[in-house]
């Protein structure tokens, strides 16, 4: 006897502890199983692309900080590379190395939050999250030494970086790079074979390779589905071609693979930082750039590999001091295209885990 059950609409709404900010899922449920889900954005749409059109090229840098606010060094790097491609300013060697070190440190900090929040949603209530915040505080101390800010650094400038590093930065960085693998192994021992995580994350929310490519997903989510695509290797920007590191990829593309890819990439980032620390030359950190940059009319697109995926800036200039158009290719928005297909058919608690494993920041989704 089949009893007809009626669907029931539930808002996993803007004010929710596990939606990584103000993101809303309007889910149609049958009991606990999600029949259909509509993602709703716009609760943090500050119109950054419109604001960028009324600021000078250097004035847009603080705006890019607030895009993906847990990886603001990477946002600065992407925007600055786009402007340098547009204007064609050479960047001194030392500044290139500093940029790579800061971008990789920021990748580790962002992955720590991503994995911590993912485990927080798996039910490990705040224990791994606080472990990982303990390490993130160390990285924040390094950033505070360099830029004086804890979260939104505004550190990079067109043509280099804003100021040189203090002399106690490199010893502190060396101490961090020596200690960090021990901590990452500590998390791995705590979590990799944890049967609760295996039971809840293995085989949950499988993203096939074709769907990932078709939905223009990028970053750890794409690599976890088995696609070996990392812009640091495919289209090496600044000086990434001088370091050797691998690109970890998952096999099946479920939540556990995404967790594994992020843990492996933390180790690879540490390798890059070590190599960069050895080869860093001395010298100036910022090339001569006029105060009001006035690029020739034209357009340029530069993309880098941020902890969320491929962040790109498409700049159009009409030879004035402000960008005519500044479009931001947000990896978090693209990664959410697959959320609906991956979530339908699973229960609510699995949907929360799948959403957590994609790891978005709403500041970048809504811009």
């Amino acid at each position, binding site marked *: 006897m089949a009893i007809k059950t009626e669907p029931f609409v539930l808002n996993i709404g803007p004010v929710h502890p596990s939606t990584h900010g103000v993101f809303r899922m309007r889910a149609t449920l049958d009991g606990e199983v999600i029949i259909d889900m509509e993602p709703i*954005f*716009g609760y943090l*749409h500050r*119109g950054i*692309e*419109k604001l960028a059109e009324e600021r000078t090229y250097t004035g847009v840098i603080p705006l890019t900080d607030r895009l993906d606010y847990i990886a603001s060094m990477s946002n600065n790097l992407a925007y600055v590379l786009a402007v340098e491609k547009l204007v064609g300013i050479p960047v001194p060697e030392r500044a290139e190395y500093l940029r790579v070190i800061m971008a990789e440190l920021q990748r580790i900090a962002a992955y720590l939050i991503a994995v911590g929040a993912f485990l927080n949603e798996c039910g490990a209530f705040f224990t791994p999250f606080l472990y990982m915040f303990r390490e993130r505080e160390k990285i924040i101390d390094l950033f505070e030494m360099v830029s004086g800010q804890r979260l939104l650094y505004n550190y990079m400038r067109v043509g280099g970086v804003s100021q040189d590093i203090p002399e106690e930065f490199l010893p502190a960085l060396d101490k961090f790079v020596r200690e960090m693998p021990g901590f990452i192994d500590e998390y791995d021992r705590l979590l990799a074979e944890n049967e609760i995580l295996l039971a809840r994350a293995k085989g949950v929310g499988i993203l096939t390779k074709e*769907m990932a*490519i*078709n*939905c*223009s*997903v990028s970053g750890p989510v794409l690599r976890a589905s088995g*696609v070996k*695509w990392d812009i640091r290797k*495919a*289209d*090496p920007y600044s000086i990434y071609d001088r370091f050797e590191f691998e690109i970890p990829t998952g096999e099946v593309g479920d939540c556990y693979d995404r967790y594994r890819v992020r843990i492996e990439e933390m180790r690879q980032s540490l390798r890059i930082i070590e190599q960069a620390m050895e080869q860093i030359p001395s010298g100036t950190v910022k090339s001569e750039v006029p105060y009001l940059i006035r690029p020739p009319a034209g357009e340029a*697109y530069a*993309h880098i590999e941020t902890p969320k995926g*491929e962040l*790109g800036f*498409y700049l*159009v200039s009409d030879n004035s001091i402000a960008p*005519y*158009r500044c*479009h931001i*290719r947000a990896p978090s*928005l*693209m990664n*959410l*295209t697959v959320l609906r297909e991956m979530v339908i058919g699973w229960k609510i608690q699995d949907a929360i885990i799948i959403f957590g494993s994609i790891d978005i920041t709403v500041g970048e989704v*809504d*811009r």
Partner: protein
Amino acid sequence: MILALSGKEVAAQLEQQFPGSIIESSENNLLAKSESLLDIAEYLKSSPELDFDYLNYITAVDYYDYFEVVYQFTSLKHNHSLVLKTRCYDRENPTVPSIVRLYQGADFQEREIYDLMGISFNGHPNLKRIFLWEGFHGHPLRKDYL
């Protein structure tokens, strides 16, 4: 290294496929008519040696007397990319064919362009505002928005 295909080579290939669909092709991008956009994208995706299976981004720029919609495709296998552009001239109701059938990743980006720039994409299954609320008047990213 992603090799940015020059617009001229691809234009030559596309010319004999779809005569008269390419308006102009400069060094790094390719301007096509908006009517033939759908089958150009179809051809770019299906032809073996081009094989653009990854859509980087779609964006739109308001040049006062026309809107320009910019697509960038990348091929993960051949590691090359191409920038394709179309223009639509009327400002009241600019329309461009939607390529959601080919690249599902275009879904949210087209909704965003419709929401912020006002260009509607016919053929899009779920075209409504993505960032702003339904009753919002006007499209903020247009140059003549207050």
